[in-house]
């Protein structure tokens, strides 16, 4: 197995300075003017579909935007929808940075949620100051373990992470069925809702926007946790030696890393960190939104995370924006259906075209023929 090839022109002493916030924004902004144009093109294609189905595209898009951002309540809901995507996006992105394809954010999120839900109900009587950190740790830990397994199998037996992550995703779904329908975590409740025992009050993330400001808002403290996670992500990658090595490996493109250049312990560490992010996302959903673990509560956070990570170019702010875009589609899309009568599947079609056109931004890039200063490439 070949050793990782460290770039020789730069070394631990000659570090590239960590990008400041302004630089990061510019990096990403240098990129997405093109994606913005791409979005416009995609929306036009989507409009054709809407027309074809006998509806008014302008009303449809107006409803979409209005649903996502029209009132302060809508804005908070869009953010609430985006939060788990930020975390699973980080989980996918940090693995991508090392050349690992983490399709397992879905499963890692669920394990984190189960662990957090279990701890939150087991120790329900503890006060928040003690219980909340415990629940957070369980969430991160659960996800980290599930991610670490993937890294371990790859490091020790060379098992491709695509296989293990896909398999583990499905496995936890069925284990969750068992745990919450007829197993040790099933809550005794009427009508047999498959859900866990509700977590203690100390484990619930409080809503941080008072009712006087935004009525009935659900925006919970998880947004703070998510913001911290984004900072941690940036810190790990740009301020630690580990992060430096990860980025260096990642620059060699996914294929190179797949060919086995990763040293073993990096794999386990990276997948565990990635799993930790996703697990935190699961914990946040349990603590901030549901208050218990419902069977099947996460339908596609892990899957959408792949698109979020790639749209955001695996960079912290990019992921945040991409997650918000997806959150807008979710929340605005529902409004599109209820108030403009657009089928929810048309929303999916529009979303697909947005993704598709953004993926093809190379073409759009060449069409707009950049002049002058080249945009700072986002790293990897």
């Amino acid at each position: 197995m070949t050793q990782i090839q460290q770039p020789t022109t730069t070394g631990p002493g000659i570090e590239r300075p960590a990008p400041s916030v302004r630089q990061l924004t510019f990096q990403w902004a240098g990129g997405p003017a093109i994606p913005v144009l791409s979005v416009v093109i995609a929306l036009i294609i989507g409009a054709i579909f809407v027309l074809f189905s006998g509806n008014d595209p302008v009303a449809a898009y107006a409803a979409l935007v209005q649903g996502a951002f029209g009132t302060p309540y809508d804005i908070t809901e869009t953010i609430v929808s985006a939060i788990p995507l930020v975390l699973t996006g980080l989980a996918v992105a940090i693995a991508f940075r090392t050349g690992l394809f983490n399709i397992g954010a879905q499963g890692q999120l669920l394990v984190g949620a189960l662990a957090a839900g279990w701890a939150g109900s087991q120790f329900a009587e503890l006060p928040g100051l003690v219980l909340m950190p415990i629940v957070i740790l369980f969430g991160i830990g659960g996800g980290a373990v599930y991610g670490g397994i993937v890294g371990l199998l790859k490091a020790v037996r060379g098992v491709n992470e695509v296989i293990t992550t896909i398999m583990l995703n499905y496995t936890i779904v069925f284990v969750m069925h068992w745990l919450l329908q007829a197993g040790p975590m099933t809550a005794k409740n009427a009508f047999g809702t498959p859900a866990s025992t509700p977590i203690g009050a100390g484990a619930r993330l409080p809503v941080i926007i008072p009712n006087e400001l935004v009525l009935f808002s659900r925006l919970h403290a998880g947004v703070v946790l998510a913001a911290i996670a984004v900072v941690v992500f940036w810190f790990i990658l740009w301020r630690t030696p580990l992060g430096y090595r990860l980025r260096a490996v990642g620059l060699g493109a996914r294929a190179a890393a797949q060919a086995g250049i990763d040293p073993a312990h990096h794999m386990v560490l990276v997948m565990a960190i990635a799993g930790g992010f996703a697990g935190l996302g699961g914990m946040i959903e349990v603590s901030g939104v549901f208050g218990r673990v419902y069977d099947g509560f996460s339908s596609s956070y892990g899957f959408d995370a792949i698109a979020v990570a790639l749209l955001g170019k695996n960079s912290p702010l990019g992921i945040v924006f991409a997650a918000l875009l997806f959150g807008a589609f979710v929340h605005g899309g529902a409004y599109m259906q209820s108030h403009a009568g657009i089928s929810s599947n048309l929303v999916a079609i529009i979303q697909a075209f947005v993704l598709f056109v953004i993926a093809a931004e190379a073409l759009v890039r060449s069409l707009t023929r950049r002049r002058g200063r080249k945009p700072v490439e986002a790293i990897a």
Partner: protein
Amino acid sequence: MKRILAFSLLAATIVASCASPGTTGSSPSGSAPTGQHPKIGLVTDVGGLNDKSFNSLADKGRKDAQAQLEVDTSVTESKQQADYVPNLTKYAQDKYDLVIGVGFLMQNAVWKVAKQFPTVKFAIIDGAPQDDGGKTENLPNVANLFFKEQEAGYLVGVIAATMAKEKTGAATHNTVCSMGGLPIPPVDRYIAGYQDAVKTVSPTTKILNGYSQDFVDQQKGIEVGKSHIGQGCDILFQVAGGSGLGYIQAAKTAGVYAIGVDADQADVAPGTVITSALKKVDVAVFQTIRSVRLSTFKSGDNLFTVANDAVGFGKLDKIVPKTASDAANQALADIKSGKITPKDTVQVK
């Protein structure tokens, strides 16, 4: 230059759309309800409108009401469970008269939103408002629509048992079976009633039971069906939504019989489907909407049973002998009168 242009274009579009009239979101066009009619909103669970089960039936009830009751209706499909609360809230914020949630997973969501909007009426299909601690709390503005699926299961079980006992047509092995999607109570109640009837009417008949682990995947349903048929089953009762269609398909291929669920599924496989266990969610939805229209809304538990003709058995295939249909009708009368109370826990797992 082009970048700035693109950015400002997009920003302008967003700003313009946000500034459209009505911050509470009444849309200027589309199928949004306008006018003086009562506004009814339906929020489905994550299965989608075409789930061949509760969501589609509830939507049918909504459409029937829209056509016959002078109400304006709207539907929102929930894509994930976290959407239940905002989907319900948006209708409530828009001052809808009735907001209906489908499924027991919405119990807590409805509880939350109903408390926040005490002047809006709500209904839950298959559930009651559940507080954050998991305790049921009836609210004065929420109707809990409950069905006794076990009664429907019992009735079709009577038909199956009679045919098995008499070895009607292709049912020669004196074995009946059922397949659920997952062993959750709304599914298991059907199966419980079915098995109770078989044990009562024909104690010698062998009973099999299985689960496809899925409510969509037809191939899984077919595999369970083949397995049961391989063990001699002649009458297959599906309680698994889209996956159950595969169970019916397996019966069709083998030339034996099947029983549908929720809606009348005789058309799914004519000649194979001998009857269906009906859960008239559409009727319940229709009646609830009508109660709002006529100001006769009843909060708390609303039971839908054979007594008010909301569960029952469906169209009988011509192969079903008169003895079976007579027995089923007798059982129907007995359940109504209280003589028979079908069990609601599964005996053969």
